[in-house]
């Protein structure tokens, strides 16, 4: 190493919010061009730390703050920006109605005094930024027409236009497919090679370990430590983040003697999947994995009556069913928890209680046909207790809950319909490690009570640990069936990611 100054060097960072210590004596440093990961569960202080470094919050007195070798007494958002610190927010902050070029070179259009827009210079700046990332995009396309992954790239390019030398990326891959994630990681490597430091925040530990050279772990507002990622395992990192050891032994049981609940034969839908056959038994957790685009979600939609199959049959407890709508599917005992839980599963500003009863409104209406507040209360109390949802009051808005608890509310909503078959589509997207364990504990409990569960996930390790059997779907077909007790995780991953 030369005596090149660190990109950022912070020490003794503390932050107190109304008596709650969000951050206590935390040190954080990142070298120039380093890819560094910031890991920790939700609420561990990651966002507070980012906000201190970007000048949004001021730390308590006594903190040492250094940006690119320069000691600073205080940092404001403007100072941070001028020094080259940029944040790619999780919710992007781009302009969908404007073109790619305008979004990237937006900075050139800022300022209170009106000036003429120089579209030529604008395009040139945008093009140069994309060239530095070694990607090409249609500069005149409306941003809103691009997939999320391309918008991420636009956000990064915008940071480069403002000469960023250190970029924070908050959960950049949360909504990306595997291929898109790989492309993004390639962009991060390019940035790093050009001397731009990247601080990566992600719940996906595999990619954290793959992309970064060091990881800083926070827990409950305190620094656990800074570790090189070489030699670090996901299990060890999880332990450091949660302070608990998780049992990750395979939970599979032999269920071949249990009665069949759902039987699918030769199910096909053009362009989505073809000739899918499998059985799902009472009390069984059947894992369904495969790359995004393999047809998993499309299959789930057909099973849930949201799309009609072209060929094949579905039998529920021996009787052939053809759902014309998902209401019929719910009535017959099929429940589906969607992948996009935040957008589709919950009505965020409404209360926990109202969300939980949404799919069973008919059961809480009294003799008058109007909703009975008492029945609603009883039903909600039952499921809050059953699923150990951590809530303030049932009347609080769902948006006040953490990701894991929101997931439980969605589960409660569907379990209240008393289903026989529960389809879980990527239930842990955006949920942190500790909460994931909680969700899978509930899944196992529900299975033990006799529910048949189809667990869809693109994280092979999740289904390997939690499912009794695993189906691998590829290119719209069932490519193989595996028994986790006989197939190692490495073999299964090799088959899926091949």
């Amino acid at each position, binding site marked *: 190493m030369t005596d090149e100054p660190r990109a950022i060097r912070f020490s003794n960072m503390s932050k107190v919010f109304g008596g709650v210590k969000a951050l206590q004596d935390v040190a954080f440093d990142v070298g120039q061009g380093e890819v560094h990961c910031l890991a920790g569960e939700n609420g561990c202080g990651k966002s507070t730390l980012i906000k201190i470094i970007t000048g949004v919050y001021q730390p308590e007195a006594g903190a040492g703050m250094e940006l690119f070798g320069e000691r600073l007494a205080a940092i404001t958002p403007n100072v941070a920006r001028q020094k080259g610190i940029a944040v790619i927010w999780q919710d992007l*902050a781009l302009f969908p109605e404007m073109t790619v070029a305008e979004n990237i070179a937006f900075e050139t259009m800022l300022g209170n005094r009106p000036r003429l827009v120089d579209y030529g210079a604008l395009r040139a700046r945008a093009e140069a930024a994309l060239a530095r990332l070694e990607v090409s995009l249609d500069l005149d396309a409306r941003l809103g027409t691009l997939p999320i992954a391309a918008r991420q790239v636009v956000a990064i390019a915008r940071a480069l236009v403002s000469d960023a030398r250190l970029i924070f990326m908050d959960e950049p891959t949360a909504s990306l497919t595997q291929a898109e994630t790989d492309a993004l990681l390639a962009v991060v490597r390019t940035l790093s090679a050009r001397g731009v430091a990247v601080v990566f925040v992600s719940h996906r530990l595999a990619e954290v370990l793959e992309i970064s050279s060091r990881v800083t772990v926070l827990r409950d507002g305190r620094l656990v430590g800074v570790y090189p990622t070489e030699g670090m395992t996901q299990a060890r990192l999880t332990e450091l983040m949660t302070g608990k050891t998780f049992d990750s032994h395979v939970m599979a049981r032999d269920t071949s003697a249990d009665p069949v609940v759902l039987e699918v034969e030769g199910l096909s839908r053009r362009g989505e999947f073809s000739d899918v056959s499998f059985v799902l038994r009472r009390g069984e957790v059947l894992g369904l994995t495969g790359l995004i685009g393999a047809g998993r979600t499309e299959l789930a939609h057909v099973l849930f009556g949201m799309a009609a199959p072209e060929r094949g049959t579905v039998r529920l407890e021996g009787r052939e069913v053809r759902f014309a709508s998902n209401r019929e599917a719910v009535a017959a005992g099929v429940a589906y928890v969607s992948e996009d839980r935040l957008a589709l599963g919950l009505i965020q500003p409404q209360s926990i209680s109202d969300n939980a009863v949404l799919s069973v409104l008919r059961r809480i209406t009294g003799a008058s046909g109007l909703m009975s507040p008492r029945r609603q209360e009883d039903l909600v109390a039952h499921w809050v207790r059953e699923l150990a949802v951590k809530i303030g009051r049932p009347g609080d808005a769902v948006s006040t809950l953490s990701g894991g608890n929101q997931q439980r509310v969605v589960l409660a909503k569907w379990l209240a319909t008393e289903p026989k078959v529960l389809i879980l589509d990527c239930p842990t997207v955006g949920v942190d490690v500790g909460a994931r364990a909680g969700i899978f504990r509930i899944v196992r409990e529900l299975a033990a009570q006799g529910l048949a569960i189809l667990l869809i996930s693109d994280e092979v390790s999740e289904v390997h640990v939690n499912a009794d059997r695993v189906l691998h779907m590829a290119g719209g077909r069932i490519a193989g069936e595996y028994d986790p007790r006989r197939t190692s995780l490495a073999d299964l991953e090799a088959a899926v990611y091949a």
Partner: protein
Amino acid sequence: MRDFLRAYPAEAKLLAVLVLLVAGLSVASPEFLTLVNITSLVNNNAVNLIWAVGLLVVLIAGGIDISFAVAASVVQYLAVTALLGMGGGGWAVGIALAMAFGIGLGLVNAALIHGFRIISIVVTISTFNAFFGLLMFFTSGKSIYSLPDWLSRPIYLWELQTEIGWADIRLPVAVMAVCLLATWFLIRRTTTGRQLYAFGDNPEGARRAGINIWLMQAIAFGWCGMMAGIAGLMQAHITKEVVPNALIGRELDVLAAVVLGGARLGGGRGSVLGCVLGVALVAVAQNGLNLLGVSPYAFKMVVGIIILAAISASNIDLAAMLAPKRRDRE
């Protein structure tokens, strides 16, 4: 062609509908496609278009304004009263006064929206009532019939005698053209205009990027108020009188025309071309019904149906239909 369709999907479809309508009416009515009829259509819709481009800027910035037509009445009254008070004045003073009063009323809206963080539809419904109530109260509903001479004398910019009568273009059309050009310049060519789009598109993103939010509201509503003021003065010029309750109700027609022209109520989208086409479609439809001898009582109904049909049609993606068939990009 495809570039135009991609950049202006709503406008392109509207243009297609308008062309069809014009073609149909040309066949159905011999009077429709005459210079006399066309120029009178343009003269009669100049005021609507001036309002439309003012409202467009507010819609682009993510707001809505219900109060502008009433504001135009207030400006008419204030400006004419002031002009009479100073002994007549002239065009330069008149336009300057109308713009100034208009901007003032627009800034009232902007200040209420920004200062109290109330959504614009609520604020402008309130100011719509407040402006109109104050106007009726202080004028006791009395009209002004004796305008300064220069204001009530029609100014012909161009005229031509045809077999069926005189065709002419009057002053309000030139004023409208200037307003259109100025608005186009503001929103397409200046950084401020692009900031307005960005602010309407994603207010939080704009705030984080460092855009001055108060300035955006002030410019959007100030511009809308300024256009309302100019439109008010032009209306007084055309009708040669100031009637306090003459303009109330026009705001919804203009709003429908602008939205028809592709401006989005959520902000971030809209163009001057769209405004022109939207206003033109409604005007041509009404004119056609008139020429075909349809009862005026049916006008509103037919115009309503046309707006609904055009807005539904705008959900069809023409660019995608014209594009060569191709699989999803990988």
